[in-house]
């Protein structure tokens, strides 16, 4: 069963299954780096999946769908930002509210789109490279959005660790008071990061309906938002690690189907559990090792009020 063909097709589909996770993880990483914990990823993702699908059906342009999925994600993220940054509300609760909101709205408006056919985003075979043995199939037969995700990860890494903007974002997430004291506008940074994060999560959703599953059903994110939250922790809030993490978790998802198909006697529920178990193990390691590079942003989830002690 473990012939090279099987492995390379598994790796190729790992990338496809991992791409929506990657978008969502990158978005949430950006948000959390600024100190805002947005637990609403699942709700934003499903909203992105529906919006992308519906816009593609209505306009016949899947790329317009992707764009509007991003905007829809941004709109939900704005609700979260408004409650968290402006009203200093409890972030986990607002996040859970976004989940319910996203699932509810898409369930309601999505009913008439079930069974519809949209224009999808199709894979492109990169000339010459895609014909390389094995490697060609694994790396060069994907759709443009999958490549853009990797480029985005690199851009985000550069932004966070090589520019002044990144310095300001990280400082805002670590110690907003310190950032404020040198003239960084904490609220502005948090708004921008939450909105941009929501945009990326929304696109992750659109990828799901327009490029991966190529259909719309209610609740089709099926927990991928939650997995992305775990992935943020898994990757230690680093975009570069998120790429590997997303493909790994995507691969586990695919593997659970493939093993089922070839009749391996492991119940697929166990396979579905693996990402969460891996995340818990990673969390354990990060707690045990207490390495600076692994920890969460120090001010994550804590509202910032100027001049308030402790």
């Amino acid at each position, binding site marked *: 069963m473990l012939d090279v063909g099987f492995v390379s097709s598994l790796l190729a589909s790992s990338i496809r299954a991992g791409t929506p996770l990657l978008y969502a993880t990158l978005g949430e990483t950006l948000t959390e780096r600024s100190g805002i914990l947005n637990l609403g990823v699942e709700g934003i993702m499903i909203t992105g999946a529906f919006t992308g699908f519906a816009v593609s059906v209505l306009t016949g342009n899947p790329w317009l769908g992707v764009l509007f999925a991003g905007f829809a994600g941004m709109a939900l993220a704005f609700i979260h930002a408004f409650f968290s940054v402006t009203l200093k509300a409890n972030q986990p609760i607002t996040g859970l509210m976004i989940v319910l909101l996203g699932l509810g709205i898409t369930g309601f408006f999505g009913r008439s789109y079930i069974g519809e056919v949209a224009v999808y985003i199709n894979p492109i075979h990169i000339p010459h490279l895609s014909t390389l043995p094995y490697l060609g199939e694994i790396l060069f037969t994907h759709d443009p959005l999958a490549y853009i995700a990797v480029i985005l990860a690199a851009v985000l890494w550069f932004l966070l660790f090589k520019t*002044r903007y990144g*310095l*300001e974002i990280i400082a805002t997430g670590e110690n907003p008071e*310190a*950032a404020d004291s*040198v*003239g960084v506008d904490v609220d502005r940074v948090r708004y921008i990061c939450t909105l941009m994060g929501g945009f990326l999560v929304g696109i992750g959703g659109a990828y799901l309906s327009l490029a991966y599953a190529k259909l719309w059903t209610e609740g089709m994110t099926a927990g991928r938002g939650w997995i992305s939250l775990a992935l943020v922790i898994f990757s230690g809030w680093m975009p570069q690690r998120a790429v590997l993490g997303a493909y790994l978790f995507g691969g586990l998802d695919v593997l659970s189907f493939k093993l089922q198909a070839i009749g391996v006697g492991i119940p697929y529920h166990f396979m579905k559990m693996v990402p969460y178990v891996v995340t818990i193990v990673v969390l354990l390691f990060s707690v045990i090792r207490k390495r*600076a590079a692994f920890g969460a942003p120090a001010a994550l989830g804590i509202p910032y009020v100027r*001049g308030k002690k402790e």
Partner: protein
Amino acid sequence: METILEMRNIVKRFEDVVANDHVNLEVRKGEIHGLLGENGAGKTTLMNVLYGIYQPDEGEIIFEGRKVRFRNPRDAISAGIGMVHQHFMLVPRMNVLQNVILGYRTPSDPLINHKWVESKVEELSEKYGIDIALYEVVMNLSVGEEQRVEILKALFRDVKLLILDEPTAVLTPQEVDSLFYALKSMTKSGLTIIFITHKLKEALKVTDKITVLRKGKNVGTVITAETSERELARMMVGRDVVMDVAKPEVKFGKEVLRVEDLWVKDDRGGFAVKGVSFSIREGEIFGIAGVSGNGQKELEEAIAGLRTPARGRILLNGKDITRLGVEKREEIAYVPEDRIGVGLAPSLSVLENLMLKDFKKYRKGLVLDYEKMEDRAKELIEEFSVKTPSLHSPASTLSGGNIQRLILARELSRSPRLIIASQPTRGLDVAGIDYVRRRLVESAAKGCAVLLISEDLDEIFQISDRIAVIFEGDIRGIMDRKEADYERVGYLMAGGLEVAV
């Protein structure tokens, strides 16, 4: 010398409290101007108004001959004003360079030009004698080094006026000296410094002029060379203060607390207390001096029963209590360093906080006898003069001094044999400090053993019978107060080793 800053009739109100009441301040270029006052006198508020953190309700600020209005710190920074806060504004996980340039635009913005930063910092280091490793992560720095990073941050932005808010609070005497030296050399190159403090000795030592604030009002400005400690104290407090609580000679009784080769871990799993041994007798005050973070917290928690030691023994009246819970350590009174977090349940009422350890005595069937508890609480409030709106106000609404009185009332009224008092007067005003020290001395006179842990050397020297110094979890030398001097204790606090005399 020309005037660089004038603050005229500054008024700042917080709800019904007037923190600054028509305050005037005039600072001349190149001087170190002390801003002296007790806690709550409005020093920090005034500087936060200047720095753009708060907006004044009335009054005007004239900086370098121009009327200015800073809407936020960014405005103040770009005008050339820098501030080193009492609590450092650093990001522990970033390195020194990143902390220095946070919020600053280097020439290659938005990219960070490391070369340019390095050469600029080198220039500043040479000019002001501040030396610091740029790529060290801030969490690995000592407090003194962190302060240098803060000062560097301000200098990097080409400030003309530097505000230092209680900069010596966390430093050893040696570090204080080197800070003062650096400040003097900065003013030589034309920098102006405002130095906020509540310590008279420091104000006298380093400033050129001193403005005293009391209860939000300007009491006056004096030239340092022409004033005295006594005059300043009178201005600060508003009356003559006797600044001595005398510790009467007591005959020490039998041993109350004995700590033998105690090893305690901190939250991160490393040893914070490394093999500490000492004993305290009845009637004795045993002072442990040392800069915060050298194992004091872990040591006091181990003795109070909040933290289990890894090795060693703790004996109270000859009985081994090393592994007993807090409740079983009835005879220990604990006045913790963290008053709000450990000493109180801030959202519970004054009554409930007073009864926190005794409520079981007031059981009436399944419920508590509130009437009796209130009677007892009233007695305690009277005896310890706790000022509170009512017995039922949340404890968090009390002022710092009254919170400490509340804790003392609960702890000392239970006739303890051992009192652990950790930083008992930190942040209190002169009257509060006096009260707390008096109470500790009285308790000792009644035969209590007192373990006093403090960063304030004056306090240690004033009321201790014996003095120990803690450094990195190790007790460096235990000496009789009579043979101890500041220099020796300061030397040990900074990590110096006891040399045979």
